């Protein structure tokens, strides 16, 4: 099942280039269903039998490529398969207005999915690097789709940040290989010594990944790239792409360096990562509150929400096993809930923008009458993003709060509460205007597919409030669990 998750998207990327336009729609749908099916089968397999390893082409490591599926990987594979499914249905309808962009969107979409699956399944640091680079190239390609000057400018910024980030990461990997002679994460976990070489390597890897995850103050490239792209592209970038580099960061700190991460240097660095997260939450929320364009508001919201993920490190490193376990569950649940909710948010906002013709927040008046379902989808996803019950976002923040209490780090507790209030501030700015009855605008009609695909994803984010146990038990059943659960 594991190689299929790479073969299907790669094959479909090529099919989408080769096949004539009129066959595309059906082919894409078939590919999506296969993809989701393969993801679910693999998830079931791992849930029943535990982690699975697979050597591609029967070439063994170190020269061959080893794939590892554990509880964490399959959770993320399912996340990307489901998000991609709804985004693709949305895109089929949305892109009808963008004839030219459509021909390039689909191959890039499948390449993006292939590199995401490659990252979730990679078992060693170098294949993570290759996955990251492919992901970055596909994502940059998607940002350039409209070919307009601002989009190209944003894409270049994104590309340069991504390239610099991956070289920093690769330099760290080179040092680790030079010192320990292996790149497999489990083996490195046993070998790592707490010495200056290791610290430099982990430092370089972390800086590279922070740059790619757009963690404050390296977030400068994200808002124009995510805010300026086409709606389905923004949804994929915010929901999935930035999570990939965070996932690697978590693997490096909590899996590879789990034996040595309570050393004073790494412990302090972990607190530093938390401070960056705090900066992201405060600065991102403030910028979202000030944003004039509604898509920029959502993009800055991504900057802020990524900050919560960073709290994993101070809460899980050097604390008690209980606090670390809660932090780990909270961060992963936040990653999932934000993935569904932010995709829904970008999709619903994309529909609103399509209907009023441009994206100024202040011109959303009358939206509640004319496009109620998309606004409802936006509302549901906002509930999860704000962390109101019942939603996946609420459960995630609740777990993080409990972890902050268990580890007696009250400052993160305050940050979590303040962050929730700030989120409410920028979200309600949209609501206040959209519920004004009198429309200041002409509305063009939009397809109901756009409404309902966004609504479905938002509903999943809410449903996670009731069914959090499923992903959590899957996460616990196998794989790496922060801080030695």
């Amino acid at each position, binding site marked *: 099942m594991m190689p299929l998750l790479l073969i299907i998207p790669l094959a479909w990327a090529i099919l989408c280039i080769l096949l004539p336009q009129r066959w595309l729609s059906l082919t894409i749908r078939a590919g999506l269903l296969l993809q989701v099916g393969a993801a679910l089968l693999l998830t079931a397999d791992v849930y029943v039998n535990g982690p699975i390893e697979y050597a591609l082409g029967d070439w063994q490591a170190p020269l061959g490529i080893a794939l590892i599926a554990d509880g964490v990987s399959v959770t993320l594979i399912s996340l990307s398969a489901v998000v991609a499914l709804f985004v693709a249905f949305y895109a089929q309808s949305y892109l009808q207005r963008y004839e030219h962009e459509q021909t390039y969107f689909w191959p890039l979409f499948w390449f993006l999915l292939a590199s995401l699956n490659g990252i979730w399944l990679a078992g060693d640091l170098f294949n993570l690097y*290759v996955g990251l680079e492919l992901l970055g190239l596909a994502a940059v390609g998607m940002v350039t789709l409209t070919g307009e000057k601002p989009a190209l400018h944003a894409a270049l910024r994104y*590309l340069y940040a991504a390239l610099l980030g991956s070289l920093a990461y690769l330099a760290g990997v080179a040092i680790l*290989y*030079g010192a320990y002679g292996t790149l497999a994460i489990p083996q490195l976990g046993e070998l790592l010594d707490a010495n200056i070489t290791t610290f430099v390597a982990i430092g370089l890897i972390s800086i590279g990944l922070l740059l790619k995850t757009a963690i404050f103050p*390296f*977030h400068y490239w994200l808002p124009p790239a995510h805010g300026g792209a086409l709606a389905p592209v923004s949804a994929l970038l915010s929901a999935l792409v930035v999570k990939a580099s965070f996932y690697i960061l978590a693997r490096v700190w909590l899996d590879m360096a789990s034996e040595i991460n309570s050393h004073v240097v790494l412990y302090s660095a972990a607190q530093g990562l938390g401070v960056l997260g705090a900066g992201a939450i405060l600065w991102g929320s403030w910028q979202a509150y000030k944003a004039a364009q509604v898509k920029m508001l959502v993009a800055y919201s991504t900057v802020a929400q990524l900050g919560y993920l960073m709290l994993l490190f101070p809460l899980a490193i050097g604390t008690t096993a209980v606090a670390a376990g809660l932090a780990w569950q909270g961060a992963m649940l936040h990653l999932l809930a934000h993935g569904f909710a932010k995709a829904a948010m970008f999709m619903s906002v994309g529909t609103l923008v399509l209907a009023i013709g441009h994206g100024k927040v202040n011109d959303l008046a009358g939206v509640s009458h004319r496009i109620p379902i998309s606004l409802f989808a936006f509302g549901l996803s906002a509930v999860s993003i704000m962390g109101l019950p019942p939603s996946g976002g609420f459960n995630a923040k609740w777990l993080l709060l409990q972890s902050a209490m268990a580890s007696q780090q009250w400052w993160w507790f305050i940050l979590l509460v303040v962050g929730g209030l700030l989120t409410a501030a920028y979200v309600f700015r949209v609501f206040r205007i959209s519920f004004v009855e009198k429309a200041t605008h002409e509305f063009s009609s939009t397809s109901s597919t756009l409404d309902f695909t966004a609504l479905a994803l938002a509903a999943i984010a809410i449903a996670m409030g009731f069914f959090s146990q499923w992903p959590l038990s899957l996460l616990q059943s196998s794989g790496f669990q922060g801080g030695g659960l």
Partner: protein
Amino acid sequence: MISFSVDFWYAGIGAALIALSLLAFLLSKRLLKKLLAFNIMGSGVFLMMVGMAQTQNDGAADAVPQALVLTGIVVAVSATALALVVIRRFALASVVAALAAENKAAENDAAENDAAEKNGAERTGSDTAVSDTTVTDTALTDPNLNKNGDPQ
């Protein structure tokens, strides 16, 4: 522990290349120069990777870092190709945008001065020709890249 072998010098020169090109990458505002700096930085990382790995192995060649570097080169070439295409498109879009703005300004000018039709057209033409090169030049630099909190 580290012996000053040939391999050590490979790794050392690699590190020096990384430092120099990082400086160029961060300080330069020209998009092409940044891309060149990225390529040199890549070579630096590859040298370091091969050099550091060989110091472990007492002279016997280690195949793994060579395979890694080969893959790394392919990735770097693809990234460079993509960057070149986007830079080219960005430069073209900038020229088009600047020309459109200038034509508009020239039209306004002509209307204001109430000049003869032929006269106005001539001036627009010559303005465009002169500005073409300067616009391309500015298009290839990107002042905003360093504004909003450049990394490091």
